[in-house]
């Protein structure tokens, strides 16, 4: 019996990173939307004309996630071959 494929270790780690990122994404999105958005409308402030809760939750949140994905992929993801080494035709 061979030992665990070395590529699986990398794959498992990257899948967990995906779960972590999604959780962070959710908390950011939820926190700003309902943290700031549940105030009365008169108390909202506006950034570039958009309600503040929306700006931070959806606009900043999206940009932040995009940057995080770039950083994670560039610095933490490892390139591995997908083909089997033993029986390559």
């Amino acid at each position, binding site marked *: *019996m*061979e*030992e*665990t*494929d070395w*590529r*699986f270790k*990398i*794959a*498992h780690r*990257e*899948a967990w*990173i*995906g*779960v972590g*990122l*999604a959780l962070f*994404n*959710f908390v950011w*999105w*939820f926190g700003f*939307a*309902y943290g700031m*958005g*549940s105030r009365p*409308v008169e108390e*909202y402030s*506006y950034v*570039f*004309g*958009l*309600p503040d*809760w*929306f700006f931070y*939750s*959806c*606009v900043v*949140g*999206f940009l932040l*996630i*995009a940057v995080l*994905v*770039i950083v994670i*992929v560039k610095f933490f*993801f*490892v*390139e*591995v*071959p*997908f*083909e*089997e080494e033993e*029986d390559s035709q």
Partner: protein
Amino acid sequence: MNYAVLVPMIGFLLVIFFIGYWASRKLSSSSNFVSDYFLGGRELGGFVLAMTMVATYGSASSFLGGPGTAYTMGFGWVLLAMSQVVTGYFVLMILGKKYAIMARRYKAVTMIDFLKSRYDSTAVVLLSAFSIIIFLFSAMAAQWIGGARLVESLTGLSYNSALFLFAVSVLVYVTIGGFRAVALTDAVQGAVMLVGTLVLLIAVIIAGGGIPNIVNDLINENPNLVTPYGAAGNLSAAYVSSFWILVGVGVVGLPQIAVRAMSYKNSRSMHRALIIGTIVTGFIMLNMHLIGVFARPVLPGIEIGDKVIPLIALETLPPWVAGIVLAAPMAAIMSTVDSLLLLVSSSIVKDVYLNYVKPDATLKTIKRISFGVTGLLGIIVFLLALNPPELLIFLNLFAFGGLEAAFIWPIVLGLYWKWGNKYGAIASMATGIVSYIGLHFYNLENGNLFGVHTVTLPVLLSLTAFIVFSLLIGRKAYNYNISAHK
């Protein structure tokens, strides 16, 4: 008839046909027809991969239904739509490299191939094929209706002729070109969506006199429109958050998305697709739904949600630009339809016919059957769409939710949890589908149970079923290192 709008749209369709034709020439010289027709020979690069995922996912619901609902609900619905940003990276990160490696090891061409090798069970294959055929059929019908409505509102043709025009366009290139044609046209269509939504958003903002002005108009009309709670204040945090499962993380369980996660060339393509996919998904969703909200003060009183985008484009843009911009939702619908069509026919041809009916079919027979089944399916959907139900978006979500509840755990846990076995998979699929359909009707009668979207509970129940049955019956650790039977 509006020729200034029609000409750019027809030009766009011609480009799409040309790509289909070009891809089909590559197909006829192929040595492995099944893998090429249904999977494009596993050679997608990063850009095409990202775009085909975005385009497949960004369907009529995000381009017509979604903005239409944002028009009535306000910013709360844009917030909900932004839960889709997660799909841009989540699917590829979760299925990721392990799925790519295992799919190659199993020589899997469809998602069902993967399940077949992982669980080694006829029941799993037939149950999956059955649910794909049933659920994706309703999704397809919904999309065709959306496409036909769009053609109808642009050309002034009757609904039936519009549907016919749309059906012919889709059928021609899916049938001849297969997955590669679909993926390549998706890339073009994705680019069209990206540019189209941006142009339209800018035009709407200008027409409304700037964002602060538009938001003021909204507050004057109804302050609830700028809160996260919807126009009537009835969008609860729990309900909106449950869309993270339906249109966010649960998308991992959608067969049309999962099949794309095994179609890329190498790790580099996957890495590029992660970045491009996240940015493009977020950008399109944000733009599209903001257009819906901003359209309200500019063009008040639109009754049918699906018509918001076509009407606002015709209102705010010069006709020929509107033609190009409206090619975007057209592109979204076509690319969703073509991938669904291909997927349903792959379930029939590859997963049922080749596995159980005639495993030793000749290449010629397979080709004939593949083209024939794809064409026949298109005709059946066309006939169903002739007499369409009203609520496009909900019909579509019904199919999505059902498939997610059925497949998410057999795929994800099959990939990562060695104790998962066929009893768990069967129980999980059955529980997911049955509880989804049951709860759907319960919620229609009594309002949403616990105030969350229908998909939430079935996903949790199918998880429980998967774990309990895997551990109770035939408990055995799976060895990921041995190759499947060849």
